[in-house]
Protein backbone atom coordinates (compact mmCIF):
# COMPACT_ATOMS: atom_id res chain seq x y z
CA UNK A 1 0.00 0.00 0.00
CA UNK A 2 1.09 3.52 -0.67
CA UNK A 3 0.55 5.57 2.47
CA UNK A 4 0.82 9.32 3.01
CA UNK A 5 1.60 10.59 6.51
CA UNK A 6 1.01 14.25 7.37
CA UNK A 7 3.13 15.53 10.23
CA UNK A 8 3.39 18.83 12.01
CA UNK A 9 6.33 20.17 13.94
CA UNK A 10 5.28 21.73 17.26
CA UNK A 11 7.08 23.20 20.26
CA UNK A 12 8.12 20.65 22.87
CA UNK A 13 5.31 20.25 25.46
CA UNK A 14 7.75 21.27 28.20
CA UNK A 15 8.61 24.51 26.41
CA UNK A 16 8.29 27.75 28.32
CA UNK A 17 6.10 29.99 26.17
CA UNK A 18 6.19 33.74 25.68
CA UNK A 19 3.64 35.84 23.86
CA UNK A 20 5.05 37.62 20.82
CA UNK A 21 5.32 41.43 20.93
CA UNK A 22 2.37 41.92 18.55
CA UNK A 23 0.29 39.59 20.76
CA UNK A 24 -0.79 37.65 17.67
CA UNK A 25 1.07 34.42 18.42
CA UNK A 26 3.76 33.04 20.66
CA UNK A 27 7.42 33.89 20.21
CA UNK A 28 8.88 30.91 18.37
CA UNK A 29 12.51 32.02 18.71
CA UNK A 30 14.55 29.79 21.00
CA UNK A 31 11.85 27.09 21.17
CA UNK A 32 12.71 23.45 20.57
CA UNK A 33 10.46 21.88 17.95
CA UNK A 34 9.54 18.21 17.83
CA UNK A 35 7.26 16.00 15.72
CA UNK A 36 3.70 16.43 17.01
CA UNK A 37 2.97 13.53 19.34
CA UNK A 38 0.01 11.88 17.61
CA UNK A 39 1.66 12.42 14.18
CA UNK A 40 4.57 10.32 15.41
CA UNK A 41 2.14 7.53 16.19
CA UNK A 42 0.58 7.97 12.73
CA UNK A 43 4.02 7.50 11.15
CA UNK A 44 4.63 4.32 13.16
CA UNK A 45 1.23 2.94 12.14
CA UNK A 46 1.99 3.68 8.48
CA UNK A 47 5.43 2.06 8.62
CA UNK A 48 3.97 -1.07 10.23
CA UNK A 49 1.24 -1.36 7.57
CA UNK A 50 3.70 -0.77 4.73
CA UNK A 51 5.98 -3.49 6.11
CA UNK A 52 3.07 -5.94 6.26
CA UNK A 53 1.45 -5.15 2.93
CA UNK A 54 4.41 -3.93 0.91
CA UNK A 55 4.48 -0.43 -0.53
CA UNK A 56 5.90 2.78 0.73
CA UNK A 57 5.36 5.63 3.14
CA UNK A 58 5.66 9.23 2.00
CA UNK A 59 5.71 11.97 4.66
CA UNK A 60 4.33 15.47 4.18
CA UNK A 61 4.90 18.54 6.29
CA UNK A 62 4.14 22.22 5.94
CA UNK A 63 6.27 24.98 7.38
CA UNK A 64 9.60 26.78 7.35
CA UNK A 65 13.12 25.45 7.06
CA UNK A 66 13.01 23.83 10.53
CA UNK A 67 10.40 21.34 9.29
CA UNK A 68 13.09 19.55 7.23
CA UNK A 69 14.53 18.23 10.48
CA UNK A 70 11.23 16.48 11.29
CA UNK A 71 11.01 15.10 7.76
CA UNK A 72 14.60 13.85 7.96
CA UNK A 73 13.74 12.09 11.21
CA UNK A 74 10.73 10.40 9.57
CA UNK A 75 13.00 9.26 6.73
CA UNK A 76 15.43 7.84 9.27
CA UNK A 77 12.55 5.89 10.84
CA UNK A 78 11.73 4.30 7.50
CA UNK A 79 9.69 6.62 5.27
CA UNK A 80 10.75 6.35 1.63
CA UNK A 81 10.66 10.04 0.75
CA UNK A 82 9.27 13.34 1.91
CA UNK A 83 7.37 16.31 0.52
CA UNK A 84 7.99 19.68 2.13
CA UNK A 85 5.33 22.35 1.57
CA UNK A 86 8.05 24.91 1.92
CA UNK A 87 6.77 28.20 0.54
CA UNK A 88 6.17 30.92 3.19
CA UNK A 89 2.76 31.45 1.52
CA UNK A 90 1.64 28.11 3.00
CA UNK A 91 2.15 29.31 6.58
CA UNK A 92 -0.26 30.88 9.06
CA UNK A 93 -3.33 29.10 7.76
CA UNK A 94 -6.29 27.66 9.65
CA UNK A 95 -7.19 23.98 9.31
CA UNK A 96 -9.06 24.65 6.04
CA UNK A 97 -6.12 26.41 4.38
CA UNK A 98 -3.58 23.87 5.65
CA UNK A 99 -5.81 20.92 4.79
CA UNK A 100 -6.40 22.27 1.26
CA UNK A 101 -2.66 22.49 0.60
CA UNK A 102 -1.94 19.03 2.03
CA UNK A 103 -4.85 17.49 0.10
CA UNK A 104 -3.50 18.99 -3.14
CA UNK A 105 -0.02 17.63 -2.44
CA UNK A 106 -1.46 14.19 -1.67
CA UNK A 107 -3.67 14.25 -4.75
CA UNK A 108 -0.64 14.86 -6.95
CA UNK A 109 0.31 11.23 -6.23
CA UNK A 110 -1.81 8.10 -5.87
CA UNK A 111 -2.34 6.97 -2.27
CA UNK A 112 -4.40 4.18 -0.70
CA UNK A 113 -4.37 5.67 2.77
CA UNK A 114 -3.58 8.94 4.52
CA UNK A 115 -2.55 8.84 8.16
CA UNK A 116 -2.14 11.79 10.48
CA UNK A 117 -2.51 12.66 14.16
CA UNK A 118 -5.86 13.56 15.69
CA UNK A 119 -4.71 16.90 17.07
CA UNK A 120 -1.65 19.07 17.30
CA UNK A 121 -0.05 20.14 20.53
CA UNK A 122 0.09 23.81 19.55
CA UNK A 123 -2.89 25.35 17.74
CA UNK A 124 -4.89 22.19 18.30
CA UNK A 125 -7.42 22.67 15.50
CA UNK A 126 -8.00 18.91 15.70
CA UNK A 127 -9.50 18.90 12.25
CA UNK A 128 -6.77 19.03 9.61
CA UNK A 129 -7.17 15.32 8.82
CA UNK A 130 -10.93 15.61 8.49
CA UNK A 131 -10.42 18.62 6.20
CA UNK A 132 -7.98 16.67 4.01
CA UNK A 133 -10.62 13.91 3.75
CA UNK A 134 -13.23 16.51 2.79
CA UNK A 135 -11.09 17.90 -0.04
CA UNK A 136 -10.23 14.41 -1.30
CA UNK A 137 -13.83 13.21 -1.00
CA UNK A 138 -12.67 10.23 1.10
CA UNK A 139 -14.17 8.81 4.30
CA UNK A 140 -12.29 9.48 7.51
CA UNK A 141 -12.11 8.41 11.13
CA UNK A 142 -10.93 10.60 14.01
CA UNK A 143 -9.47 9.53 17.40
CA UNK A 144 -8.40 6.15 16.05
CA UNK A 145 -6.93 3.66 18.53
CA UNK A 146 -6.94 0.55 16.32
CA UNK A 147 -6.45 0.06 12.58
CA UNK A 148 -6.58 -3.12 10.55
CA UNK A 149 -6.41 -3.14 6.76
CA UNK A 150 -8.58 -5.95 5.44
CA UNK A 151 -7.36 -8.52 2.94
CA UNK A 152 -7.76 -7.19 -0.56
CA UNK A 153 -6.94 -3.70 0.74
CA UNK A 154 -10.39 -2.36 -0.14
CA UNK A 155 -11.43 -1.51 3.40
CA UNK A 156 -10.08 -0.91 6.90
CA UNK A 157 -11.54 -1.82 10.26
CA UNK A 158 -11.04 1.02 12.67
CA UNK A 159 -11.49 1.37 16.43
CA UNK A 160 -12.22 4.96 17.34
CA UNK A 161 -12.77 6.56 20.72
CA UNK A 162 -16.11 7.97 21.72
CA UNK A 163 -16.81 9.62 25.10
CA UNK A 164 -16.23 8.10 28.56
CA UNK A 165 -14.04 5.22 27.52
CA UNK A 166 -16.50 3.80 24.98
CA UNK A 167 -14.99 2.79 21.62
CA UNK A 168 -16.74 2.37 18.31
CA UNK A 169 -15.70 -0.03 15.56
CA UNK A 170 -16.38 1.15 12.01
CA UNK A 171 -15.45 -0.17 8.59
CA UNK A 172 -14.17 2.36 6.08
CA UNK A 173 -13.89 1.91 2.34
CA UNK A 174 -10.38 2.75 1.10
CA UNK A 175 -8.88 5.14 0.20
CA UNK A 176 -9.51 6.89 3.51
CA UNK A 177 -7.98 9.34 5.95
CA UNK A 178 -7.25 7.97 9.43
CA UNK A 179 -6.53 10.37 12.27
CA UNK A 180 -4.81 8.42 15.02
CA UNK A 181 -4.62 9.04 18.74
CA UNK A 182 -1.43 8.99 20.74
CA UNK A 183 -1.03 5.55 22.30
CA UNK A 184 -2.23 3.46 19.34
CA UNK A 185 1.19 1.74 19.08
CA UNK A 186 4.75 1.94 20.38
CA UNK A 187 6.79 4.14 18.04
CA UNK A 188 10.20 2.77 17.09
CA UNK A 189 13.54 4.52 17.45
CA UNK A 190 15.72 5.37 14.50
CA UNK A 191 18.63 2.99 13.88
CA UNK A 192 22.08 4.21 12.94
CA UNK A 193 21.58 2.57 9.56
CA UNK A 194 18.28 4.38 9.16
CA UNK A 195 19.87 7.71 10.00
CA UNK A 196 22.64 7.13 7.43
CA UNK A 197 20.15 6.06 4.74
CA UNK A 198 17.94 9.08 5.43
CA UNK A 199 20.71 11.39 4.25
CA UNK A 200 20.31 10.07 0.73
CA UNK A 201 16.51 10.12 0.64
CA UNK A 202 14.60 12.78 -1.23
CA UNK A 203 12.86 15.75 0.40
CA UNK A 204 10.96 17.47 -2.41
CA UNK A 205 10.15 21.11 -1.76
CA UNK A 206 6.90 22.25 -3.36
CA UNK A 207 5.23 25.64 -3.79
CA UNK A 208 1.52 26.46 -4.16
CA UNK A 209 2.04 26.79 -7.92
CA UNK A 210 3.50 23.26 -8.05
CA UNK A 211 0.21 22.05 -6.54
CA UNK A 212 -1.96 24.08 -8.89
CA UNK A 213 -3.00 26.42 -6.10
CA UNK A 214 -2.95 30.21 -6.12
CA UNK A 215 -1.14 32.01 -3.29
CA UNK A 216 -4.53 33.29 -2.12
CA UNK A 217 -5.82 29.73 -1.64
CA UNK A 218 -3.27 28.77 1.02
CA UNK A 219 -1.84 29.93 4.34
CA UNK A 220 -2.77 33.11 6.13
CA UNK A 221 -4.26 34.59 2.94
CA UNK A 222 -6.86 31.82 2.75
CA UNK A 223 -7.50 31.51 6.48
CA UNK A 224 -11.11 32.12 7.48
CA UNK A 225 -10.03 32.74 11.07
CA UNK A 226 -8.32 35.98 12.01
CA UNK A 227 -6.29 35.92 15.21
CA UNK A 228 -7.08 38.97 17.34
CA UNK A 229 -4.91 38.21 20.36
CA UNK A 230 -3.18 35.46 22.28
CA UNK A 231 -2.79 35.67 26.04
CA UNK A 232 -2.10 33.59 29.13
CA UNK A 233 -5.19 32.37 30.95
CA UNK A 234 -5.70 33.84 34.41
CA UNK A 235 -3.18 32.06 36.53
CA UNK A 236 -3.87 30.49 39.88
CA UNK A 237 -7.37 31.82 40.42
CA UNK A 238 -7.68 31.15 44.13
CA UNK A 239 -4.79 28.69 44.12
CA UNK A 240 -2.53 29.11 47.09
CA UNK A 241 1.04 28.43 46.02
CA UNK A 242 3.60 27.11 48.49
CA UNK A 243 7.20 27.91 47.70
CA UNK A 244 10.57 27.25 49.26
CA UNK A 245 11.85 24.27 51.20
CA UNK A 246 9.91 21.14 50.13
CA UNK A 247 9.68 19.84 53.71
CA UNK A 248 8.16 23.12 54.95
CA UNK A 249 5.80 23.24 51.98
CA UNK A 250 4.67 19.67 52.59
CA UNK A 251 3.94 20.39 56.27
CA UNK A 252 2.05 23.57 55.39
CA UNK A 253 0.01 21.74 52.79
CA UNK A 254 -0.90 18.92 55.17
CA UNK A 255 -2.06 21.53 57.72
CA UNK A 256 -4.17 23.30 55.09
CA UNK A 257 -5.71 20.07 53.89
CA UNK A 258 -6.53 19.15 57.46
CA UNK A 259 -7.78 22.44 58.87
CA UNK A 260 -8.94 24.47 55.87
CA UNK A 261 -10.07 21.97 53.26
CA UNK A 262 -10.84 19.35 55.92
CA UNK A 263 -10.07 16.48 53.61
CA UNK A 264 -7.55 14.70 55.83
Amino acid at each position, binding site marked *: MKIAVCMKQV*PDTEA*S*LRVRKDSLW*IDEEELTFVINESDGYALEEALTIAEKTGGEVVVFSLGGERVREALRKALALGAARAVHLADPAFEGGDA*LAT*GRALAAAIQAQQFDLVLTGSQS*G*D*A*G*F*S*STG*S*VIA*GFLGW*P*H*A*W*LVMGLEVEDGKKAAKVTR*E*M*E*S*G*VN*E*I*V*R*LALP*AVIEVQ*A*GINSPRYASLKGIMQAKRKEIAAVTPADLGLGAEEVGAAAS*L*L*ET*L*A*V*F*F*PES*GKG*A*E*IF*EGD*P*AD*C*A*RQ*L*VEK*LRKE*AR*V*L
Partner: protein
Amino acid sequence: MADGILVVAEHLGGKLSDITFEMLGKAKALSGAGGDVTVLLIAGDASMAAELGAADTVAIVEGDGLADFNPESYGAALGAAVEAKSPRLVMVGYTAMGMDLASTLAVKRNLPHATFCLDVAIGDSITATSQCYGGKINVTTDLGAGPCVVSMLAGAAPADAGRAEGTPSTESLPAPASAGKIRFKRLIEPEAGDVDITAQEILVAVGRGIGSKDDIEVAEDLAEELDAAVAGSRPLIDAGWLPKTRQVGKSGLKVAPKLYLALGISGAPEHIEGMKSSATIVAVNSDKQAPIFNFAHYGMVADLFDVCEELTEALQERKG
Protein backbone atom coordinates in the same frame (compact mmCIF):
# COMPACT_ATOMS: atom_id res chain seq x y z
CA MET B 1 -33.00 32.18 10.42
CA ALA B 2 -30.02 34.05 9.08
CA ASP B 3 -29.50 35.37 12.63
CA GLY B 4 -30.20 32.02 14.21
CA ILE B 5 -28.05 29.63 16.17
CA LEU B 6 -28.06 25.89 15.57
CA VAL B 7 -26.97 23.73 18.52
CA VAL B 8 -26.10 20.10 17.84
CA ALA B 9 -27.41 17.99 20.73
CA GLU B 10 -25.52 14.99 22.09
CA HIS B 11 -26.98 12.08 23.97
CA LEU B 12 -25.67 8.83 25.35
CA GLY B 13 -27.74 5.88 26.49
CA GLY B 14 -31.02 7.76 25.99
CA LYS B 15 -29.91 10.73 28.08
CA LEU B 16 -28.98 14.19 26.83
CA SER B 17 -25.36 15.07 27.73
CA ASP B 18 -24.44 18.11 29.83
CA ILE B 19 -22.61 19.67 26.88
CA THR B 20 -25.98 20.02 25.12
CA PHE B 21 -27.41 22.14 27.95
CA GLU B 22 -24.16 24.09 28.30
CA MET B 23 -24.32 25.09 24.63
CA LEU B 24 -28.06 25.72 24.74
CA GLY B 25 -27.68 28.07 27.71
CA LYS B 26 -24.91 29.94 25.93
CA ALA B 27 -26.90 30.07 22.68
CA LYS B 28 -29.92 31.44 24.52
CA ALA B 29 -27.80 34.21 26.05
CA LEU B 30 -26.26 35.01 22.65
CA SER B 31 -29.63 35.14 20.94
CA GLY B 32 -30.83 37.91 23.25
CA ALA B 33 -30.09 40.36 20.44
CA GLY B 34 -32.49 38.50 18.14
CA GLY B 35 -32.49 35.23 16.29
CA ASP B 36 -33.87 31.83 17.10
CA VAL B 37 -32.14 28.93 18.78
CA THR B 38 -32.70 25.57 17.11
CA VAL B 39 -31.46 22.34 18.63
CA LEU B 40 -30.65 19.61 16.15
CA LEU B 41 -31.49 16.28 17.72
CA ILE B 42 -30.19 13.37 15.68
CA ALA B 43 -31.71 10.01 16.60
CA GLY B 44 -33.43 11.59 19.60
CA ASP B 45 -37.02 11.23 20.71
CA ALA B 46 -39.92 13.35 21.99
CA SER B 47 -38.95 12.89 25.65
CA MET B 48 -35.52 14.37 24.95
CA ALA B 49 -37.12 17.20 22.97
CA ALA B 50 -39.28 17.97 26.01
CA GLU B 51 -36.14 18.62 28.07
CA LEU B 52 -34.92 21.23 25.59
CA GLY B 53 -37.28 23.94 26.83
CA ALA B 54 -34.70 26.68 26.41
CA ALA B 55 -34.74 26.22 22.63
CA ASP B 56 -37.13 27.95 20.23
CA THR B 57 -37.23 24.92 17.97
CA VAL B 58 -36.14 21.32 18.23
CA ALA B 59 -35.42 19.72 14.86
CA ILE B 60 -35.46 15.94 15.06
CA VAL B 61 -33.79 13.73 12.47
CA GLU B 62 -34.68 10.06 12.51
CA GLY B 63 -33.80 7.36 10.08
CA ASP B 64 -32.00 4.12 9.39
CA GLY B 65 -28.31 4.15 10.17
CA LEU B 66 -28.58 6.94 12.74
CA ALA B 67 -28.90 4.82 15.89
CA ASP B 68 -25.12 4.88 16.39
CA PHE B 69 -22.66 7.57 15.46
CA ASN B 70 -21.47 7.44 11.87
CA PRO B 71 -19.59 10.53 10.65
CA GLU B 72 -21.08 10.11 7.19
CA SER B 73 -24.77 9.80 8.02
CA TYR B 74 -24.62 12.24 10.93
CA GLY B 75 -22.60 14.64 8.79
CA ALA B 76 -25.22 14.45 6.05
CA ALA B 77 -27.98 15.13 8.61
CA LEU B 78 -26.14 18.18 9.97
CA GLY B 79 -25.41 19.44 6.48
CA ALA B 80 -29.10 19.21 5.56
CA ALA B 81 -30.14 21.01 8.75
CA VAL B 82 -27.68 23.85 8.05
CA GLU B 83 -29.02 24.05 4.51
CA ALA B 84 -32.61 24.24 5.79
CA LYS B 85 -31.99 26.70 8.63
CA SER B 86 -29.13 28.87 7.33
CA PRO B 87 -27.93 29.64 10.87
CA ARG B 88 -25.38 32.37 11.55
CA LEU B 89 -23.66 30.21 14.13
CA VAL B 90 -23.44 26.44 14.51
CA MET B 91 -22.45 25.19 17.98
CA VAL B 92 -21.13 21.68 18.55
CA GLY B 93 -19.38 20.14 21.52
CA TYR B 94 -15.63 19.58 21.46
CA THR B 95 -16.39 15.88 21.77
CA ALA B 96 -15.64 12.71 19.85
CA MET B 97 -18.83 13.23 17.87
CA GLY B 98 -19.08 17.00 17.77
CA MET B 99 -15.58 17.72 16.52
CA ASP B 100 -15.89 15.15 13.80
CA LEU B 101 -19.12 16.73 12.57
CA ALA B 102 -17.84 20.29 12.88
CA SER B 103 -14.70 19.65 10.83
CA THR B 104 -16.68 17.96 8.10
CA LEU B 105 -19.28 20.72 8.00
CA ALA B 106 -16.57 23.38 7.84
CA VAL B 107 -14.79 21.80 4.89
CA LYS B 108 -17.98 20.91 2.99
CA ARG B 109 -19.43 24.41 3.28
CA ASN B 110 -16.17 26.38 3.54
CA LEU B 111 -17.03 27.81 6.96
CA PRO B 112 -14.70 29.33 9.54
CA HIS B 113 -14.34 26.87 12.44
CA ALA B 114 -12.89 27.66 15.87
CA THR B 115 -12.16 24.71 18.17
CA PHE B 116 -11.46 24.25 21.91
CA CYS B 117 -13.77 27.23 22.58
CA LEU B 118 -14.18 28.58 26.09
CA ASP B 119 -16.40 31.43 24.99
CA VAL B 120 -18.09 32.87 21.95
CA ALA B 121 -19.52 36.35 21.37
CA ILE B 122 -21.74 37.75 18.65
CA GLY B 123 -21.45 41.34 17.46
CA ASP B 124 -20.93 42.62 13.94
CA SER B 125 -18.67 39.66 13.69
CA ILE B 126 -18.47 36.48 15.72
CA THR B 127 -15.47 36.05 17.99
CA ALA B 128 -14.36 33.02 19.97
CA THR B 129 -11.80 32.44 22.70
CA SER B 130 -10.08 29.08 22.42
CA GLN B 131 -7.49 27.18 24.35
CA CYS B 132 -4.28 26.16 22.62
CA TYR B 133 -0.90 24.71 23.60
CA GLY B 134 -2.61 22.19 25.85
CA GLY B 135 -4.36 24.96 27.79
CA LYS B 136 -1.22 27.05 28.34
CA ILE B 137 -2.37 29.85 26.03
CA ASN B 138 -5.73 31.30 25.04
CA VAL B 139 -6.41 32.79 21.63
CA THR B 140 -9.21 35.08 20.52
CA THR B 141 -10.19 34.78 16.88
CA ASP B 142 -12.56 36.59 14.56
CA LEU B 143 -14.75 34.23 12.54
CA GLY B 144 -16.31 36.91 10.36
CA ALA B 145 -19.97 37.85 10.16
CA GLY B 146 -21.18 34.25 9.87
CA PRO B 147 -22.12 31.59 9.04
CA CYS B 148 -19.46 29.84 11.11
CA VAL B 149 -18.88 26.89 13.42
CA VAL B 150 -17.57 26.72 16.99
CA SER B 151 -16.75 23.59 18.99
CA MET B 152 -17.28 24.30 22.66
CA LEU B 153 -15.23 22.74 25.44
CA ALA B 154 -17.16 20.76 28.01
CA GLY B 155 -17.72 22.85 31.13
CA ALA B 156 -17.11 26.18 29.36
CA ALA B 157 -20.62 27.37 30.24
CA PRO B 158 -22.98 26.34 33.05
CA ALA B 159 -25.44 23.61 32.08
CA ASP B 160 -28.17 24.97 34.37
CA ALA B 161 -28.79 27.95 32.08
CA GLY B 162 -29.77 25.51 29.35
CA ARG B 163 -32.19 23.51 31.47
CA ALA B 164 -34.99 26.08 31.38
CA GLU B 165 -38.65 25.12 31.10
CA GLY B 166 -40.39 25.96 27.87
CA THR B 167 -42.38 24.63 24.98
CA PRO B 168 -40.23 24.70 21.87
CA SER B 169 -41.87 23.88 18.58
CA THR B 170 -40.70 20.57 17.18
CA GLU B 171 -40.19 19.66 13.59
CA SER B 172 -38.95 16.63 11.77
CA LEU B 173 -36.11 16.86 9.27
CA PRO B 174 -35.51 14.12 6.71
CA ALA B 175 -32.42 11.95 7.01
CA PRO B 176 -30.48 12.42 3.78
CA ALA B 177 -28.84 9.49 2.04
CA SER B 178 -25.12 9.08 2.72
CA ALA B 179 -22.36 7.72 0.51
CA GLY B 180 -22.10 4.44 2.44
CA LYS B 181 -18.31 4.48 2.67
CA ILE B 182 -18.41 4.15 6.46
CA ARG B 183 -20.27 1.29 8.14
CA PHE B 184 -20.91 1.14 11.87
CA LYS B 185 -20.00 -2.26 13.29
CA ARG B 186 -20.34 -2.20 17.07
CA LEU B 187 -19.57 -0.44 20.35
CA ILE B 188 -17.04 -1.62 22.91
CA GLU B 189 -17.83 -0.70 26.51
CA PRO B 190 -14.88 0.03 28.80
CA GLU B 191 -13.61 -2.80 30.99
CA ALA B 192 -13.97 -2.66 34.76
CA GLY B 193 -10.71 -2.37 36.68
CA ASP B 194 -9.39 -3.76 39.96
CA VAL B 195 -10.05 -0.39 41.59
CA ASP B 196 -12.95 1.93 40.77
CA ILE B 197 -11.26 5.34 40.73
CA THR B 198 -14.64 7.08 40.48
CA ALA B 199 -15.54 5.74 43.95
CA GLN B 200 -12.40 6.95 45.78
CA GLU B 201 -12.39 9.79 48.30
CA ILE B 202 -8.76 10.62 47.57
CA LEU B 203 -6.86 10.16 44.32
CA VAL B 204 -3.13 10.57 43.77
CA ALA B 205 -2.90 11.22 40.05
CA VAL B 206 0.36 11.15 38.14
CA GLY B 207 1.24 12.57 34.74
CA ARG B 208 4.05 12.78 32.25
CA GLY B 209 6.23 14.53 34.86
CA ILE B 210 6.79 11.22 36.65
CA GLY B 211 9.27 10.31 33.91
CA SER B 212 9.38 6.53 34.20
CA LYS B 213 7.21 3.56 35.10
CA ASP B 214 9.34 2.58 38.10
CA ASP B 215 8.95 6.02 39.63
CA ILE B 216 5.18 5.59 39.97
CA GLU B 217 6.21 3.85 43.19
CA VAL B 218 6.66 7.22 44.94
CA ALA B 219 3.03 8.04 44.15
CA GLU B 220 1.97 4.60 45.38
CA ASP B 221 3.76 5.19 48.68
CA LEU B 222 1.99 8.52 49.09
CA ALA B 223 -1.34 6.96 48.12
CA GLU B 224 -0.88 4.26 50.75
CA GLU B 225 -0.27 6.88 53.41
CA LEU B 226 -3.45 8.70 52.33
CA ASP B 227 -5.52 5.54 51.92
CA ALA B 228 -5.97 6.66 48.33
CA ALA B 229 -5.80 5.09 44.89
CA VAL B 230 -3.34 5.98 42.13
CA ALA B 231 -4.75 7.35 38.89
CA GLY B 232 -3.08 8.87 35.84
CA SER B 233 -3.35 11.15 32.85
CA ARG B 234 -3.50 9.85 29.30
CA PRO B 235 0.23 9.82 28.40
CA LEU B 236 0.89 7.31 31.20
CA ILE B 237 -1.84 5.01 30.02
CA ASP B 238 -0.61 5.37 26.41
CA ALA B 239 2.86 4.38 27.57
CA GLY B 240 1.41 1.31 29.31
CA TRP B 241 2.57 2.45 32.76
CA LEU B 242 -0.92 2.33 34.25
CA PRO B 243 -4.01 0.38 33.14
CA LYS B 244 -6.72 2.15 31.12
CA THR B 245 -9.09 1.76 34.09
CA ARG B 246 -6.96 4.28 36.02
CA GLN B 247 -7.19 7.00 33.36
CA VAL B 248 -8.76 10.32 34.34
CA GLY B 249 -9.98 12.61 31.56
CA LYS B 250 -12.08 13.02 28.48
CA SER B 251 -11.25 9.62 27.01
CA GLY B 252 -11.02 7.98 30.42
CA LEU B 253 -13.12 8.39 33.55
CA LYS B 254 -14.62 11.46 35.13
CA VAL B 255 -13.86 11.66 38.84
CA ALA B 256 -14.89 13.99 41.67
CA PRO B 257 -13.07 12.90 44.85
CA LYS B 258 -12.77 14.96 48.03
CA LEU B 259 -9.07 15.40 47.33
CA TYR B 260 -7.28 15.19 43.98
CA LEU B 261 -3.50 15.38 44.05
CA ALA B 262 -2.16 16.08 40.56
CA LEU B 263 1.54 15.21 40.39
CA GLY B 264 3.41 16.17 37.24
CA ILE B 265 0.17 16.69 35.33
CA SER B 266 0.23 19.79 33.12
CA GLY B 267 -3.55 20.12 32.95
CA ALA B 268 -4.47 19.82 29.27
CA PRO B 269 -8.18 20.56 28.69
CA GLU B 270 -8.89 16.86 28.13
CA HIS B 271 -7.57 16.06 31.61
CA ILE B 272 -9.28 18.99 33.32
CA GLU B 273 -12.63 17.80 31.94
CA GLY B 274 -12.22 14.58 33.91
CA MET B 275 -11.31 16.02 37.34
CA LYS B 276 -12.43 19.63 37.65
CA SER B 277 -15.38 18.70 39.89
CA SER B 278 -13.03 17.43 42.61
CA ALA B 279 -13.71 19.19 45.93
CA THR B 280 -10.06 20.06 46.63
CA ILE B 281 -7.34 20.01 44.00
CA VAL B 282 -3.62 20.10 44.79
CA ALA B 283 -1.18 20.53 41.91
CA VAL B 284 2.55 19.81 41.98
CA ASN B 285 4.47 20.71 38.84
CA SER B 286 7.94 21.97 38.03
CA ASP B 287 6.55 24.14 35.21
CA LYS B 288 4.97 27.26 36.69
CA GLN B 289 3.10 27.82 33.41
CA ALA B 290 1.31 24.49 33.73
CA PRO B 291 -2.42 25.19 33.29
CA ILE B 292 -3.25 22.82 36.16
CA PHE B 293 -2.44 25.72 38.53
CA ASN B 294 -5.44 27.61 37.14
CA PHE B 295 -7.72 24.92 38.49
CA ALA B 296 -5.95 23.93 41.69
CA HIS B 297 -6.80 25.16 45.17
CA TYR B 298 -3.26 24.58 46.42
CA GLY B 299 -0.13 24.39 44.34
CA MET B 300 3.59 23.78 44.55
CA VAL B 301 6.02 24.69 41.81
CA ALA B 302 8.49 21.98 42.69
CA ASP B 303 10.00 18.64 41.83
CA LEU B 304 7.28 16.06 42.38
CA PHE B 305 9.68 13.50 43.85
CA ASP B 306 10.78 15.93 46.57
CA VAL B 307 7.18 16.79 47.32
CA CYS B 308 6.02 13.16 47.39
CA GLU B 309 8.75 12.19 49.82
CA GLU B 310 8.17 15.16 52.09
CA LEU B 311 4.40 14.76 51.99
CA THR B 312 4.65 11.09 52.84
CA GLU B 313 6.93 12.01 55.73
CA ALA B 314 4.71 14.87 56.92
CA LEU B 315 1.71 12.55 56.94
CA GLN B 316 3.63 9.92 58.90
CA GLU B 317 4.75 12.59 61.40
CA ARG B 318 1.19 13.66 61.95
CA LYS B 319 0.08 10.11 62.55
CA GLY B 320 3.15 9.33 64.61
